[in-house]
């Protein structure tokens, strides 16, 4: 029994709660593992199964002893018992029936939620009981992001900024996860995670400055809009190539572990990005090198126009985690409390067990992919509307707050006006500021500018002395 742990059965165990597979192969070790690992109607069970639940404690001890046995025997591959499958690549059992592990025979991994679409908590034990101030901060952040999205989206439509990507429908994933970790936990994002920055207190001014590439942009106007980043708030600058941040997040987490910093790294990515090779690299490296990193997948149903059924054939992203040996969970991404609970639990696992965790947050991309995309070309307006109206993270949280008596129509009106004012003030300011000095173009390629680049900078200066009238010099800061 012990040696089942790392075999293919492990994958099945974790993935396949109450599956047909189980009914066909009701070995006791299989069913125990399933119960302890993925029978999560209850997030505490997911956390506590490792420490409190009697049955799982036994399991855990078994697993630990298995692991230590395996670790000790890693360098030795001697066949001890001819009836055991003792291949170095996997410890498993022999069987004599020819049986493929057919994914169609398994039930999909369930979606963990705390509250329903009416903002009602389904199981009181699951309510993290965050206080009024904390919860209204989350709500205000989500709605502020929403206000900013509306203004900047329109701003792009009017040609005032070159590009924009909204966060409609995914605000819950940003704030639920960001609120559950520390502000000094390092964030590697994809591009649709502006809410994490807002939660951490990044000023709207700075977000706008980046989108306008003005002289207050921390990135010195070098990147496209929405490629935010700030060292002060531990949010690594966004880059366009998808998934490249994933193995990087693992490296940073490994460094934190070596520095004994008690910090984790959270790495956001979409379900489309999970098809990149770097996703595979990251999960495998994180598992084998025991890196305390939370992989947070925003599964919003689309990668630009590509629906998920053209992206993968397995059970989403979450089922891949166990295949890499990574504890994994699927949550309702429109339920801030569910996202919060799962992320909090993930951080605990990361730090206590020094291993990665995978969270797949199910949600829906309500907005277009970007301002360069008209999503009605590949999905129905009705589909979008139904998500916007029936299952929106902001609406759901508002209902929750109203039930607690923490929010009402007056507060809503008042805050909407305030949010609008904040956004418009920042917007006007951002637009008025000049762009950085154009010589900033040559800085920061290296730590020190090479001579050849200095020469090119000089050439531009000389060129502008003669041809400056043909360039938008007046829009740029003069020295």
């Amino acid at each position, binding site marked *: 029994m012990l040696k089942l742990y790392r075999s293919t059965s492990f994958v099945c165990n974790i993935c396949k709660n109450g599956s047909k597979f189980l009914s066909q192969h009701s070995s006791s070790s299989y069913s125990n593992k399933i119960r302890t690992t993925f029978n999560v109607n209850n997030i505490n069970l997911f956390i506590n199964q490792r420490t409190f639940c009697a049955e799982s404690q036994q399991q855990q001890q078994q697993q630990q002893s298995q692991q230590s046995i395996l670790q000790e025997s890693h360098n030795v591959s001697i066949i001890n018992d001819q009836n055991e499958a003792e291949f170095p690549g996997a410890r498993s059992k022999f069987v004599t029936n020819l049986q493929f592990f057919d994914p169609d025979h398994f039930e999909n991994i369930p979606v963990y939620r705390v509250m329903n679409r009416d903002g009602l908590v389904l199981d009181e034990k699951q309510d993290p009981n965050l206080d009024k101030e904390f919860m209204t901060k989350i709500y205000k952040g989500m709605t502020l992001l929403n206000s900013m999205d509306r203004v900047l989206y329109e701003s792009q439509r009017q040609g005032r900024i070159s590009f924009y990507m909204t966060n409609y429908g995914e605000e819950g994933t940003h704030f639920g996860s960001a609120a559950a970790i520390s502000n000094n936990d*390092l964030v*590697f994002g994809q591009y649709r995670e502006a809410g994490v920055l807002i939660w951490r207190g990044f000023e709207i001014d700075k977000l706008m400055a980046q989108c306008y590439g003005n002289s207050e*942009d*921390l*990135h*010195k106007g*070098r*990147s496209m809009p929405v*490629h935010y*980043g*700030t*060292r002060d708030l531990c949010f*690594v*600058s966004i*880059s366009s*190539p998808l998934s*490249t941040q*994933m*193995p*990087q*997040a*693992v*490296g*940073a*987490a*490994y*460094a*934190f572990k*070596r*520095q004994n910093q008690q910090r984790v*790294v959270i790495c956001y990515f979409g379900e489309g990005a999970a098809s990149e*090779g*770097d996703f*595979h*690299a*990251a999960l*495998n*490296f994180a598992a*084998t*090198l025991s890196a305390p990193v939370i992989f947070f997948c925003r599964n919003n149903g689309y990668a630009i126009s590509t629906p998920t059924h053209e992206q993968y054939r397995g059970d989403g992203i979450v089922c891949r985690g166990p295949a890499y040996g990574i504890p994994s969970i699927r949550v309702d991404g429109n339920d801030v409390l569910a996202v919060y609970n799962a992320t909090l639990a993930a951080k605990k696992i990361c730090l206590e067990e020094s291993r990665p965790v995978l969270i797949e947050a199910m949600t829906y991309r309500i907005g277009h992919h970007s301002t360069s995309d008209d999503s009605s070309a590949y999905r129905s307006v009705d589909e979008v509307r139904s998500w916007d109206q029936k299952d929106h993270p902001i609406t759901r949280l508002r209902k929750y707050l109203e039930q607690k008596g923490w929010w009402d129509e007056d507060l809503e009106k008042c805050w909407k006006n305030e949010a609008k004012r904040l956004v418009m003030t920042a917007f006007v300011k951002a637009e008025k500021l000049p762009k950085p000095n154009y010589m900033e173009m040559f*800085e*920061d*390629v*290296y*730590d020190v500018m*090479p*001579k*050849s*680049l200095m020469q090119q900078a000089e050439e531009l200066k000389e060129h502008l002395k003669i041809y400056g009238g043909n360039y938008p010099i007046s829009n740029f800061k003069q020295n």
Partner: protein
Amino acid sequence: MIRSILGRILTATINNSTIITTTTTTTSRTLSHFAFKPDTAAVSDGDTTRMNLFQAINNALEIALVSDPKAVIFGEDVSFGGVFRCTVNLQDKFGKDRIFNTPLCEQGIVGFGIGLAAAGATAIAEIQFADYIFPAFDQIVNEAAKFRYRSGNQFDCGGLTIRTPCGAVGHGALYHSQSVESYFAHCPGLKIVIPRGPIQAKGLLLSCIRDQNPCIFFEPKILYRLAVEQVPVKDYMLPLSKAEVLVEGDDVTLIGWGTQVHVLHEVCEMARDQLNTSCELIDLATIMPWDRETVINSVKKTGRAIVAHEAPLTAGFGAEIAATLQKECFLHLEAPILRVAGYDTPFPHVFEPFYLPDKWKCLEAIRKSINY
């Protein structure tokens, strides 16, 4: 039949010029196409120990680990010492959390290294062969090289060094022979370094590791065991972006790097003996950002330049050097700048002796240049 490039020299005079040919005296496939010319450390460098190239690299890595507790080494098979022995004994000395194997995935190795460096660690990554660096091309070119620039210098991965064996090895064929430096030379933000021997390798590698920019350090694998020098024991660094004039001369400037420097060294002697020509030999050592000044000054003096590299001709780094020289030295040039390089083919297995820009091809280029 000519089976080996080593052999007895025959000379014949055709059309008033000297044509040099060889006849084979051996059919061994393990003989190299050059004679390693060792460097000598200065007396002021203190105690020295006999080391080959892999030992010098191992020594540099050990010094880097001792002097910097944040430094880690990782890659495929580095734990047991590496397939070329460059990391031998390091895990025993520094522990499994500092010297460790990664899964077999180059994009993961470089991405992981970038993350380590971004979090303040010193990341020394190994790619097992330069031929296999391409899966990491995206991470190197789009990420490592641009990390500082795009973040407005808020984040950088300057602590990253990628070491990788490169170049011809006699029988490496398509995927164990490539010289890939020019792919990366086109990417601002990277430093690219190639040493010619143990003394230089140790000093340049330590500079790369400590430089605050992502560096790719290409190690000519044919030199790992073959190149032996008395290497200073102490911790020392050699400056990046600094070319070295190894032989002074007046008639032609020869520019090369890595193994090719040794080919050119021999060519200098051949040119002196057979063509009565005085060559100035420059080891470029750093491909990016390269030492334009040293090369330009030399060519202004000699009026002739030949660049030689193992990589294919078209868009090889020789093209960059030649273009720069014709711009900067136009009035000084007495002959067209010539490039002796690998052919524009994949690197072949059994045809390697015919493929390489060997000393005969280089000598012929000198002859053409001075007769122009």
